[in-house]
């Protein structure tokens, strides 16, 4: 039975896997092929993203296209390259062997990319070679005879310009042809005789590629010049790091200033909704749950969507243009001083938006120890969920004055909090590398791809993914935490003739009061203790929780007054600083811990991370509180 008839009989669509080296335009081709009909998920046990999409070929075959992680070789060096190898060989759990492979290569870099094709050809599976970015190759005067290449290799060869959808019809036609005459009764479910290529086998492949190119390349293209010229500036020993710093500064500046308007809209919208609900609902428990619990809480979190999207916009643009690897190049020596790989810069930068995609991005780091250290310190990068707390406390306790001729004090404190996180992360990495996670310095072998204009479709799809993940988090974890928190702080109701605010007598108050002795040495009162309980699940909830705690405290003024004013009046400066220090380190995000567990495949490292961050947070808060008290901040 052929793959085609299998599909026709309705068993399943034919499965085509896209395989190719990084920077071959594979994902762009995948986006062009499948458009919006993509499904992203995870491979079981790891957070390597599984991307697939359904389409119907002109010949009427339903096809599932699978976009495999970029890989230079089937000899996998990193967890995501291992996925590519295992899927291609039919070893991946819950994945059937693809019916055909499409090897995507960069036509301007065939000398390097055809080697992977030779590895794939040895597997003996139906295979199509795609020469992508053909327009760039032609612009440089390069002429390749696809007929000669196809004849030499014995497989179909298609040229494409994935970004402009050129050649996609040809590719689909070839897929049709393969499916029509697919190896009858194939029945192969796995490839068992594959062995890792030896160094000499790799050398032999290089020679074979040389020979193929001599046959097929009619005219050499001129080498690329723009990238060289740009790198002369961007990788310059002095200008390079300065430009990187300026870019990072611009990025964080944009996160704060561009996001202002959309954040105001969300704020206004939520306030309107709250007012409308207050006006149109009967006084009841349900109303209290909706208005005080859900709308206020969700509003306090959704408001950070613009900042997260702007941060990711920058990251996606830097990544798609090819600059991100330059940043890794520039940072490598600095990071290797604490035993990290330059590649760790990319996941750590993503962690400024959210630690979870950062932890996921660490999968591109080949060595397990390097990767583990990167994962363990990712939560120390100031993620956007900390911002609400920082903004609130800074506004309440740091005067809006300027120091040293024009630098805003509030901004300076914010910068200090970011810097503390970074320095803390580097210190932790250094200590881990010297103690628990000792090991050799791992090699850095990283392609610096040619610069190109970012592809808007890729960037938009990436942003859409991030927004979906964030909103899903709000809809699941954060929403349920808010409902639980509302319940805990509403029941049981205050007894007759109560002197304390109602929440004092609730379950939340009970938990807060139980924790209070433990948190008193670092200056936290029972209100903070209550807010920290839900804040352990997702840190941004703490602001909403503080709002709830003070709004429900029966203090009429607190409901209407801004939380800022309330806090400024009821907390000491030392307490506020201590809470800020706590927030720099504390592991307050269930989703991150879950991601670490998934990524390291054990609770061991997730637990370790929780414990060490908790200890650091307590220590930092304790020192901050005591020092602030001694200096008169009480």
């Amino acid at each position, binding site marked *: 039975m052929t793959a085609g008839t299998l599909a026709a009989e309705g068993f399943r669509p034919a499965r085509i896997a896209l395989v190719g080296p990084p920077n071959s335009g594979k994902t762009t081709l995948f986006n062009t092929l499948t458009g919006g009909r993509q499904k992203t998920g995870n491979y079981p046990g790891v957070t390597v993203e599984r991307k697939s999409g359904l389409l119907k070929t002109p010949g009427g075959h339903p096809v599932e296209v699978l976009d495999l992680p970029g890989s230079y070789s089937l000899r996998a060096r990193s967890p995501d390259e291992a996925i590519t190898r295992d899927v291609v060989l039919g070893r991946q759990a819950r994945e059937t062997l693809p019916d055909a492979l499409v090897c995507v290569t960069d036509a301007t870099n065939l*000398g390097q990319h055809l080697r992977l094709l030779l590895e794939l050809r040895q597997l003996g599976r139906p295979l199509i070679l795609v020469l992508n970015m053909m327009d760039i190759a032609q612009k440089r005067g390069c002429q390749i005879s696809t007929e000669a290449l196809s004849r030499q290799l014995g497989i179909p060869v298609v040229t494409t310009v994935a970004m402009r959808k050129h050649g996609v019809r040809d590719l689909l036609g070839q897929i049709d042809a393969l499916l029509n005459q697919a190896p009858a009764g194939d029945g192969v479910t796995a490839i068992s005789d594959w062995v890792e290529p030896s160094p000499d086998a*790799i050398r032999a492949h*290089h020679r074979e590629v040389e020979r193929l190119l001599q046959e097929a390349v009619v005219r050499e293209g001129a080498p690329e010049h723009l990238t060289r010229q740009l790198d002369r500036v961007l990788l310059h020993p002095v200008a390079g790091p300065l430009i990187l710093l300026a870019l990072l500064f611009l990025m964080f500046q944009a996160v704060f200033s561009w996001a202002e308007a959309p954040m105001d809209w969300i704020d206004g919208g939520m306030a309107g909704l709250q007012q409308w609900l207050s006006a149109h609902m009967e006084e009841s428990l349900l109303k209290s749950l909706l208005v005080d619990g859900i709308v206020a809480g969700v509003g306090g979190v959704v408001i950070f969507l613009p900042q997260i999207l702007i941060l990711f916009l920058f990251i996606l643009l830097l990544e798609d243009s090819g600059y991100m690897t330059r940043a890794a190049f*520039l940072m490598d*020596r600095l990071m290797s001083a604490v035993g990290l790989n330059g590649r760790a810069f990319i996941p750590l930068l993503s962690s400024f938006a959210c630690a979870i995609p950062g932890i996921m991005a660490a999968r591109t780091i080949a060595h397990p120890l390097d990767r583990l250290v990167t994962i363990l310190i990712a939560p120390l990068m100031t993620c956007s969920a900390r911002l609400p707390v920082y903004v609130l406390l800074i506004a309440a306790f740091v005067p809006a004055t300027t120091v040293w001729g024009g630098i805003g004090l509030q901004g300076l404190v914010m910068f200090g909090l970011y810097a503390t996180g970074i320095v803390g992360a580097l210190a932790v990495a250094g200590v881990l590398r010297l103690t628990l996670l000792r090991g050799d310095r791992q090699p*850095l072998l990283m*392609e610096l791809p040619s610069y190109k204009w970012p592809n808007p479709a890729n960037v938009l799809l990436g942003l859409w993914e991030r927004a979906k993940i964030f909103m899903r988090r709000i809809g699941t974890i954060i929403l349920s935490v808010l409902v639980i928190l509302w319940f805990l702080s509403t029941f049981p109701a205050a007894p007759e003739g109560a002197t304390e605010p109602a929440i004092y007598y609730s379950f939340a108050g009970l938990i807060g009061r139980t924790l209070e002795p433990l948190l008193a040495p670092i200056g936290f009162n029972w209100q903070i203790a209550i807010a920290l309980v839900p804040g352990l699940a997702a840190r941004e909830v703490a602001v909403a929780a503080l709002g709830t705690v003070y709004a429900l405290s029966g203090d009429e003024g607190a409901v209407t007054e801004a939380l800022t004013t309330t806090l400024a009046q009821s907390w000491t400066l030392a307490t506020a600083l201590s809470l800020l220090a706590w927030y720099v380190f504390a592991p307050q995000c269930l989703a991150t811990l879950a991601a670490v567990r998934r990524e390291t495949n054990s609770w061991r490292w997730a637990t370790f991370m929780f414990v060490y961050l908790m200890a650091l947070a307590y220590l930092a808060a304790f020192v901050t509180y005591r020092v602030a008290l001694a200096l008169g901040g009480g």
Partner: protein
Amino acid sequence: MDGHGGQERQLFELGRLVKAGLTQPLGLMRPGGVGRILAVQSGEGDIERGLLEMGFVEGACVEVLHHGFLGRDPLAVRINQTMTVALRRGEANAVLVGPLLDQGADTRSSTGQEARLS
């Protein structure tokens, strides 16, 4: 593929260049330096394979483009005028480089520049 005789000739050629002091590890080259790879050998098999997979293979032409701002590490190396790869000095020293124009005209890889070893 190279026969046995071809390998012997290569080894002889390598010995001649080493004696003449015309070879050096890639890690010692400075930006602007160009050359042809004579040997890729590392005590660690995985590093050797990693280098080979990224295009550092005997016969390929290399040009050192940049180095990092601290300790001149890592290096950015252009291979055969097409792919640029970043690697650290330590790994780069597993790549032995000889003069560019010594092995006759291979137009695909030659840059037309004089062999400059620094």
